[in-house]
């Protein structure tokens, strides 16, 4: 079977190479759809995942007039991550476990067009490390034979494709087995006709894998592991050809002792991006297992790695390990955002930028993985002195490493990272990335523990607290928001926040950057200066990202509320011990004084203009045999 797969892979690579030679590339339907500002058709907005809207109706001059237009409660608590999708006049909303889905019409969002409520084994909750969150849905526009689909992941490990018009299940497959600790929180990512599914469970010793399925049938196309033999990791012959110093063959086993790679982590539960020009998909693999570094000598490849893989074959073109032999749980899954910029020598480059948990924001040439820049997200990062651009190696400060029989203190960043799962934005006109940043440091002491499939396999006790620029006495000042240039490495502006900016940002051509906060605000800052221009108090804290779309000439801003995720575990599960929740309880002890749980979507527009400006829209009409509604008059 493997032999057959490989020969098919080689053929596909050759075909892909031939295709990329042709000068014109046919744009696929989904890519085209994502370019319309009427839609927000995927997490990240477009294949480049830049989260940038060209809409200008809401801008720095009138943003103060933003008001709620309508809202929707999902009926569930716990963390609400990701964002809704907007396609063809409908909004698709996802929830925390049990991962319900709702479709609403933008013309009359009071009527739920369809809803999907999966029956899942409640035991899946027990193996979710960090709240029962989910990062969102994917949309596929259909091809005339198969209808348009909404693809979703379930915490229990299933992947489901629903008919986007009716909500009926088209296919449902098993990707992960929660009985061995493997769950799904990642959003599916659809590129062309392929849906990519990541994995979760490194805190339970799950060996990470990325899987590609045919979106029409659920058929598995390829599966690439993060550790183990090259044939499992899908390391091709030309892997890291441009940067052999990153390492090439055999390292998925050679950088581990014995069979430790079989429970080696490297799950990928973050965000992806795709470049149709290179046909590569970009994502990062997570932390090695266990957190106790002493139990896994070696570089632990290929965890903590930025990947460029062929979409059709899964073969890795490049892999750059950011954190060799992780000692801090700097799970390398954060977003990948694509841009085209001139480097310091004036050479036009195709780039990917990636702010990592480890406190470094990396920019690579996305055609071959060459490192362009690696800057500290904040000058208080102390685990690394710097990253050597030529070798790609981080220069560790042994003072801030971790090891058995030792309590490491004042380590920055903490395991929660200086950046986590938030999906941020990039304004291509200003060449600025708007980063929602954490400012949390920690003390860390590992302990020995056995591996039992299905049980937690962490092996470290943590205390986390605000970084040097925050208020350690009060337990506040845990976040920052910054505007960053990836070529110069300069921050155009930086602002402190009370709590970690966990959910990510969205930027618009109206010179605004929007983001939600854990204390329950949606905020708008001037993207040139960082000046706070507007905010609104939401029902609960935010761990998802805002989206911006246009419907019938009105620009809307939407965001999910519902605090939770890792920073919310103390609040969600009512924990008091500061070291509980993998150390997050102590760090976020003040959170419950500002917010409580919730779950829903709020939609804003200028002056609150919306579907119910005509009060008769959505009204019950006596004697009517079906729901009657009128389009709002423009």
């Amino acid at each position: 079977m493997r032999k057959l797969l490989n020969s098919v892979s080689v053929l596909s690579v050759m075909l892909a190479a031939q295709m990329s030679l042709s000068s014109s590339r046919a744009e696929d339907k989904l890519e085209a759809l994502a370019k319309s500002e009427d839609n927000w058709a995927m997490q990240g907005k477009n294949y480049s995942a830049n989260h940038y809207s060209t809409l200008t109706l809401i801008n720095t001059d009138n943003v103060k007039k933003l008001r709620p237009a309508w809202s929707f409660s999902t009926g569930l608590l716990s963390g609400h991550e990701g964002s809704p999708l907007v396609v063809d006049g409908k909004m698709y909303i996802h929830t925390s476990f049990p991962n319900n889905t709702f479709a609403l019409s933008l013309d009359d969002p009071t009527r739920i067009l369809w809803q999907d409520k999966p029956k899942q084994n409640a035991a899946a909750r027990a193996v979710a490390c960090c709240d029962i969150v989910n990062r969102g849905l994917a949309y596929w526009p259909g091809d005339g034979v198969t209808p348009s689909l909404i693809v979703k992941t379930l915490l229990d490990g299933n992947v489901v494709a629903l008919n986007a018009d009716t909500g009926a299940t088209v296919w449902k497959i098993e990707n992960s087995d929660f009985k061995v600790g493997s769950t799904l929180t990642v959003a599916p990512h659809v590129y062309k006709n392929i849906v990519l599914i990541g994995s979760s469970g490194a805190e339970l010793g799950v060996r990470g894998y990325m899987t590609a399925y045919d979106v029409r049938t659920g058929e598995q196309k390829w599966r690439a592991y993060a550790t183990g033999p090259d044939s499992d990791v899908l390391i091709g012959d030309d892997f890291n050809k441009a940067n052999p110093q990153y390492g090439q063959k055999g390292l998925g086993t050679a950088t581990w002792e014995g069979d430790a790679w079989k429970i080696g982590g490297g799950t990928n539960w973050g965000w992806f991006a795709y470049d149709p020009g290179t046909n590569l998909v970009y994502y990062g693999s997570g932390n090695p297992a266990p957190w106790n570094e002493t139990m896994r000598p070696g570089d632990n490849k290929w965890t903590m790695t930025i990947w460029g893989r062929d979409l059709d074959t899964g073969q890795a073109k490049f892999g750059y390990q950011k954190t060799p032999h992780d000692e801090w749980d700097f799970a390398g899954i954060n977003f990948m955002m694509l841009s085209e910029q001139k480097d310091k020598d004036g050479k036009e480059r195709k780039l990917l930028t990636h702010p990592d948990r480890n406190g470094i924001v990396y920019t690579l040439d996305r055609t071959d993985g060459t490192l362009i820049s690696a800057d500290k997200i904040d000058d208080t990062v102390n685990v690394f002195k710097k990253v050597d651009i030529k070798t790609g190696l981080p220069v560790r400060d042994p003072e801030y490493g971790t090891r058995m029989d030792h309590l490491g203190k004042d380590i920055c960043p903490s395991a929660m990272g200086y950046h986590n799962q938030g999906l941020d934005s990039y304004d291509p006109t200003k060449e600025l990335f708007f980063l929602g940043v954490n400012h949390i440091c920690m003390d860390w002491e590992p302990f020995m523990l056995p591996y039992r499939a299905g049980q937690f396999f962490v092996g470290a006790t943590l205390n986390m607290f605000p970084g040097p620029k925050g208020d350690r006495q009060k337990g506040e000042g845990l976040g920052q928001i910054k505007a960053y240039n990836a070529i110069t490495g300069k921050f155009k502006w930086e602002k402190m926040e009370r709590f970690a900016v966990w959910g990510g940002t969205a930027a618009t051509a109206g010179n605004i950057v929007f983001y939600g906060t854990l204390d329950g605000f949606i905020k708008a800052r001037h993207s040139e200066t960082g000046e706070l221009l507007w905010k609104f108090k939401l029902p609960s804290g935010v761990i998802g990202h805002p989206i911006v779309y246009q419907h019938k000439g009105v620009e809307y801003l939407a965001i999910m509320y519902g605090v939770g995720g890792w920073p919310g575990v103390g609040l969600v599960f009512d924990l008091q011990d500061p070291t509980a929740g993998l150390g997050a309880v102590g760090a976020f002890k003040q959170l419950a004084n500002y917010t409580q749980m919730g779950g829903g979507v709020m939609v804003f527009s200028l002056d609150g203009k919306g579907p119910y400006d005509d009060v008769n829209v959505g009204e019950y009409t006596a004697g009517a045999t079906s729901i009657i509604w009128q389009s709002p008059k423009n």
Partner: protein
Amino acid sequence: MRMTNLAPALLAGGLLVAMPVSVVLAYDGTTCKAPGNCWEPKPGFPEKVEGSKYDPKHDAKEIAKQQTSIQGMEERNKKRVAYFKKSGKWVYEVDKIPTE
């Protein structure tokens, strides 16, 4: 990439006395055995943990469980997809997939 250890050079120069030992010997990630393989044990820790006091003593049976589980899922999915392609109907319960 610094392929050589600085310690001998520093020793020869008599600098070791003047510098904290940890600076010279501690694992800083820049001394590589091979490209992409730059791990070193920390001072006082073994090159291999097997047989040491840090031996994780993994149970081979436990460690094999994930791969067995994945193989099972892949086989069930194949049956589901094959029937879907043949019939146009999706049946999730593998034991309910018609054999004819």
